[in-house]
């Protein structure tokens, strides 16, 4: 393009010189306009791509104009005529290219539009799929939670059974053996956590029920000492239950010392039975009756 332009310029200069010798015109007439118009069109790659025929015509008309200018002068009617035609043809080539560029853009725009619509539809579908999955997951989670709760209450019931819960007139009585405390101590062993957790869960599920903790020892040791120890142990269990979220007014702790033995205290085995904590859960919101007679909890 540059070479062509240089060549053209050189040719034009020569022509100008020749024209100068011949007619010495003050004015190139329409010829400079035509040269500019053709050069302008040639510089536009869209013109060479989309309007090569028109560009070619413009070039030929410009050559005619140059030839006429050489023969009859740059301002001659015929030179001006061809210069005018060349100018208009170069403009036609440009407009033709503009039209084609726009048409191509419209075509690509249509496919872009389709692509956007397609992507939007895909996104919507994915969104719907994600929503459905989420809903399904929520339903599954809810179902799993329900199943877990059911299993938990079944487990709780089974554990209550494990703890040898006995339905009595005073309420449900759970007897925890001497696994809760070390000898002579009133702080709960780690193994106590589970039964206490179960009691607390049970009370959480049955907010109307109350609980009474009763501590007992065997007959070894002084009476006062045993009374204090059993009270402390009952308090420790009560405190642990309260710490697990059960209201304090629902929990009562009593120490009975060596009273109300379960067995004779004559052997290790029987003494072990007597070292215990009993937890009495009220029937509904009934008050828990006190102990009156030995051996009947």
């Amino acid at each position, binding site marked *: 393009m540059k070479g062509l332009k240089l060549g053209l310029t050189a040719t034009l200069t020569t022509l100008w010189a020749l024209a100068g010798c011949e007619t010495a015109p003050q004015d190139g007439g329409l010829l400079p306009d035509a040269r500019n118009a053709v050069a302008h069109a040639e510089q536009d790659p869209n013109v060479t791509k989309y309007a090569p025929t028109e560009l070619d015509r413009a070039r030929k008309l410009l050559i005619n104009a140059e030839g006429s200018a050489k023969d009859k002068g740059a301002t001659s*009617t015929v030179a001006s*005529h061809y210069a*005018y*035609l060349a100018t*208009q*043809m170069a*403009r*036609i080539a440009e*407009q*033709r290219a*503009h*039209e084609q560029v*726009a*048409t191509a*853009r*419209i075509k690509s*725009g*249509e496919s*872009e*539009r389709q692509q*956007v*619509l397609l*992507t*939007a539809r895909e*996104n*919507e579908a994915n*969104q719907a799929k994600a929503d459905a999955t989420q809903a399904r997951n929520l339903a599954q989670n809810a179902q799993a939670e329900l199943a877990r709760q059911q299993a938990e209450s079944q487990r709780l019931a089974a554990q209550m059974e494990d703890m040898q819960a006995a339905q009595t007139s005073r309420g449900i009585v759970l007897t925890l053996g001497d696994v809760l405390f070390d000898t002579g101590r009133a702080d709960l062993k780690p193994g106590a956590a589970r039964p206490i957790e179960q009691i607390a869960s049970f009370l959480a599920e049955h907010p109307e029920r109350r609980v009474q903790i009763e501590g007992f020892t065997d007959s070894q040791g002084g009476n006062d000492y045993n009374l204090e120890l059993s009270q402390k142990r009952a308090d420790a269990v009560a405190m642990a239950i309260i710490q697990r979220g059960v209201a304090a007014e629902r929990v009562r702790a009593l120490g009975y010392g060596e009273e109300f033995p379960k067995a004779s205290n004559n052997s290790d085995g029987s003494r072990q039975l007597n070292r215990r904590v009993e937890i009495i859960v009220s029937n509904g919101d009934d008050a828990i009756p006190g102990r009156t007679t030995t051996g009947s909890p």
Partner: protein
Amino acid sequence: MITVNGIRNALWCAIAFGIVACASAPMPTDKLAVAKTAVERAEQAQAAQFAQVELTSARNKLAAAQAAADKHDADVAARMADQAEVDAQLAEYTARAKQQEQLVEQMDAGLRDLRNEAQRNSSGAGAVTPPPQPQPQ
């Protein structure tokens, strides 16, 4: 009705034309017809709206070509007809290019709205509503 007078007049005309034709170049009737067709094409391409200057120039030159032909000036008629033709062609292609470019603008605006709408729908939750079609112009 063809009368004897009519035929005689026609003959006189023919003779007169023959003399003129002998005196100068033949009338560029082809060029005139081509220029006329080009102007009509430009008009059909809505050049009156989109390329008024070029169309007006084409019409004026066509009229000038016709006038020159009427005065049996073949050279001027041919030149004016040629110029009218390129003016009309320029008017036609300019009008077409402008209309296509207007379509491109509308399309780009539509695409922009469509993209924004798609963006909103994919990023924001909620029901998908059809995008309000913008009315260009």
